[in-house]
Each structure stands twice: as C-alpha cells, then as structure tokens.
C-alpha cells in the first residue's frame, strides 16, 4: 500500500510539473503583455516598456526558454513571480484561494450529499412520484449551462427582491463592505450573499449525483447480499443504509475526482458572474490582462486540486471497498 501510494504520488508530482510548465509555455507564447502598454497617450518609450517587462520577467525580447528558466527557478523556491501590475502572484492568489475554497467546499458538500440522498431515495421508491419528478428535473438542470443558470438565478433574485420590497438575496460580492453590527449580522449578511452562488454551483452537482446514485442503488438493491441481510433479520432500513448505500457509494466516490475538475470550471463562471474575488475570477481577468505568471500559477493550483481530489477518491475508495485494501 505504501509503495503504491508513493509511486502514485511521484507520478502526480510529475504530472503537475509538466502540466504547469506546459501552461506557462503556452501562456507565454500566446499572450502578449506588451499590448497592455500600447495605445497610451502619450506613447510610452520602448525602452521604458522593455525595462518594465524585463522586471516582471515578461519581456518577449528574451527567449522563451530563458524566461521559463527564470520563472521555474522562482517556482522551485515557492515564488510564482509578479502580476502585470507588479504585485506578488503568491499574495494575490493566496488571498483568492480562500474565497474559492469556501465556495467550492460548501457547494461540493451540499451538492453531493443532496444528490446522493435524492438518488438513493428515488431508487428505493422506483417509478414513484418522487422518482419521476427528480428524473425530469435532473434532465432539465443538466441541460442548463452554469452561465445561464447563474444569470437566471440573478434575474429571479431581483424579481423576488422587487416583490418583497426589500433586499432579501444579495447578488454581488461575498460580504457587504462596511457593514455595521455584531457577528450575527455579519454571518447573516454572508449567508444572504452565499445562497445564489452556492445554488448555481451545486444544482448541477445534485443532478449528476442523483442520476448516478439512483442507477448504482438500483443495481445494488437487487443483489443477493441485501436479501441475505434482510433474511438474517436486519430491518429494511438498516439493510438499505448500512449495506446498500455503502456499496452503491463506491462508484460515486470514484466519480468525485472527475466532478472536481468540472467544479473548478463551474466556480470560474460563478465567481465571475457573482463578483466573488476568487481564483476563478482571476483566471478570466488574467487572460484578458495578459498576465502570464498568474495564468501559470492558476494552472498549477488547478492541477494540484484535481490530483488531490483523485488521491482523496483513491483513499475513500479503499476505505469503502474491502477488495481494494487487499490488493
């Protein structure tokens, strides 16, 4: 087990290094930071722009490989370089990672738990009203892209606020700046901000997980070991939760790693549309501002996140499935 884990970790590490390097090369050759300084009135002298770009390690006069080595040397020491405005990428992203992780964690937990529960319940009452309703709803939700869903939620919230005559749900940002009042007021304010982004992030997850869990549960429900468990005197409820649900969870856990990547992309849209200053928002911004160093740092973060999710799903898989532990 230890050897297996070490080999896997080494492989992951190499994947991260190659993926980040590739992203850097691509970004450095496709994006043009020089254009940020063009079209100024009066035009900046070329020498000034060159000096500025060299200072940021973004000068396209330097060969790409040389820039890459300078950048990689910094990354090895844990420094991802500077943003186009001269700030430190580490500080900027460090601040943003917290925002993104808060949003993702809440969305992921809510989405997967709700999805698994809905799917499992629908499978137990197959062809019931609940089953039919959730099947139709999940098909519709899966057809709505995050960008549309987020905008529809915003429109709905504005209408709701208009009808109520007061601001119930807040649309933009993570918290109201300069809010007065105690801890309770601040927490309430955050929740009001959180509802819409979380919904836009987790509704799709709920739909995916409920479909998946329903099919898995149906496969397991007909299995012999459930009948045996009930024949040995276990109540139906205990047999379903302790044996059926646990077995049916295994594929859902494997699926976890794949959804995580999709979730990262989903947060990009959600953050950008709802004005949360997280990593995803910075991703869109950094491409429009030709910020090569930030783009590379975000790819590193995304690769790390996806691989951590893969590792977590491996471990969870081993916990849930006795066959894996033996092998």
């Amino acid at each position, binding site marked *: 087990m230890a050897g297996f884990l070490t080999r896997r970790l080494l*492989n992951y590490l190499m*994947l*991260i290094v*190659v*993926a980040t390097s*590739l*992203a850097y090369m*691509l*970004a450095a050759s*496709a*994006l043009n930071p020089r254009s940020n300084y063009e079209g100024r009135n009066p035009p900046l002298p070329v020498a000034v722009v060159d000096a500025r770009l060299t200072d940021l390690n973004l000068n396209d006069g330097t060969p790409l490989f040389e820039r890459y080595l300078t950048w990689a040397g910094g990354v090895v020491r844990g420094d991802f370089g500077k943003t186009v405005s001269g700030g430190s990428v580490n500080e900027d992203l460090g601040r943003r990672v917290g925002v993104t992780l808060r949003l993702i964690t809440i969305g992921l937990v809510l989405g997967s738990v709700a999805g698994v529960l809905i799917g499992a319940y629908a499978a137990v009452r197959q062809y019931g009203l609940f089953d039919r309703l959730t099947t139709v709803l999940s*098909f*519709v939700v*899966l*057809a*709505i*892209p*995050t*960008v*549309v869903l987020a*905008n*529809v939620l*915003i*429109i709905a919230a*504005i209408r709701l606020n208009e009808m109520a005559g007061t601001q119930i749900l807040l649309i933009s940002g993570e918290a109201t700046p300069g809010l007065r009042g105690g801890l309770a007021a601040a927490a309430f304010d955050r929740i009001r901000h959180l509802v819409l982004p979380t919904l836009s992030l987790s509704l799709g997850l709920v739909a995916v997980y409920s479909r998946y869990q329903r*099919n898995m549960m*149906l*496969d397991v429900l007909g299995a012999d070991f459930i009948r045996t468990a009930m024949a040995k005197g276990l109540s139906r409820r205990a047999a379903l939760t302790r044996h059926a649900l646990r077995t049916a969870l295994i594929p859902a856990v494997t699926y976890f790693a*794949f959804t995580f*990547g999709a979730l*990262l*992309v989903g947060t*990009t*849209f959600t953050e*950008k549309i709802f004005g949360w200053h997280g990593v995803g928002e910075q*991703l*869109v911004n950094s*491409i*429009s501002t030709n910020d090569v160093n930030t*783009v590379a740092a*975000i*790819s590193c973060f*995304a*690769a790390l996140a*996806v*691989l951590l999710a893969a590792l977590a799903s491996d471990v969870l898989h081993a916990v849930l499935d006795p066959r894996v532990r033996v092998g």
Partner: protein
Amino acid sequence: MAIAGEELAGQQSSVDRIKAPSRLRVVAGGLLRSGRGRIGLALLALIFLLAFAGPYLTRWTYVSKDYTAFLAPPSTEHWWGTLQTGADVYAVTLRGLRRSLIVGLLAAVVGTALAAVVGAFAGYFGGWTDRALTWLTDLLLVLPAFLILAIMSPLFAGSQWPVFVLVLALFLWMVTSKIVRSMTISLREREFIHAARFMGVPPTRIIFRHVIPNLSSLLVVDATLNVSAAILTETSLSYFGFGIQPPDVSLGSLIADGARTALYAPWTFWFCAGLLIVTVLAVNLVGDSLRDALDPTSRGAGDR
C-alpha cells in the same frame, strides 16, 4: 479450398447484408419505443429545421441592422424583437444556434474518434505504448481545459473556427479513452481477436476492423453525449469572449449580451438561453435512450 473460402465469404457477406439493417432497426425501434427517445428526436429535428431553414423565413440577416428599432419588443416586423444595436433577435439567434450546433457536432465526432483510437491503441498494445498514452491522457485531464482554450482564443479570430473545433475536441476525449482502453484489454483476449492475430492480420488493422467496431455502441452514445458537452463548453467560452469571435455570433456571446439587458428587455436573453437549454436537453435525451437501446442489459431499458 479457395473456392470454399470464397463461397463462405459470399455467404457471410449476404448474411451481413441481411443482418446489418436489422441491427439498425432494432436500435431505432428501441429508440422510438422509449418516450425519452421520441421526445428527444422530435425536439432535435425541430431545432435542426429551425437552425437551417428558419433563416430563410425572415428578410433580416444576422448582420443587418434596423435603425428604426433599437431594443424593440417582439412584433410582426421583428418576431423576437431587436437588440440594442438594432439587430433582429430571430436572425441573430438562429445564426448562433447554427454555429453552436456545427461546432458541437464536429467537436464531438473528432473527440470520440480520438478517444477510440488512443484508447484502443493503449489497450491493445499494452506495455510502453499504454504507459505513454495513459500518461498523456492523465496530463490532459490535469490541464485546466478552460484556461488553455481561453489562452488560445486569439487563434480563433476571423474565420478560424475549425481550429476552435479541433482544440475543443482535444479536451473531450480523455474519460472515454480510459473506458475504451479497459474494454480493449478484455477484448484483446477474445477468440476472434486471437484468430485474427494468428492469421497474421497486422495490429493496426485488427484495431480498426475488429476492436473499434466492437465498441461502437459505447462510442455512438459517447459521441452523442459529447455533442452536449461540446456545446456547453463552446457557449461558456463564448460567454466570456474566448470562443467564437465577433462579428460571428454564437449562443454563448448572445447570452452574455442578453444577460445585461434581460431585466428590461427579456426577449434579448430568454430566446437564446431557452434554445440552448432545449438543444442540450434534446441531445441528452437522445443519448440516454440510445444507450438503453444499444445495451440490452442496461438497467434503464425498462425505464420509460
């Protein structure tokens, strides 16, 4: 011997001729029997009709502007109203729909073909080929697709949208290729593959003639579901201005513009958003019932 072989081949081909359409008929029957498949196919047919015949019904094109009507609500003159620029929403939306459909279909086909080839080669050859291809697959899974596509967006400007399709397809195939690989590994040990190998059929030919056709049900379903995935990715990219570049329009860029005016001019947002949702829904419905129709053991087969 040779004659007998030829006769056998002749018989075989006539058997094939009888059998081939019946398989198609079985699948089509299964598809049409399920309510999901019927609704999906009908919706899809309507959408295609609208996208490809619809533009001929109106005298407005997606570039023409009506300077007497800015942000006008739907009327007999402009069926779905106009945008802030005076462009006809009906004409622009259909143009975007057509672009999204073409991009989605092409990217899905290319992506699935790539998945089939990479997965089958990795699974069939094993060893270093397998290790290298699996590593490549993992690498592409780890690279943030949205970011790479967005970085490369300047390449898609002008009439370069086929490049966009190719890059989109490059990020669609990884998961399927993993499934194809594991299925190929089990197929490799089957008698007919052994027979072909011992008769001296070259490996590439075995892969294209025997392995991939045996995975066709999986691939057909995957290609269908990839269409919706490709359309969703394309619209999301275009929403942020990284996909189809102006003056061309796609549903994504229309939704981005429409979302800004949606509150006081709902027609600028809901027509394109609604069409996008219906399109993806129809493709998913067809893909789902196709999976049931192609797989007799599928649990969903009885699930109408």
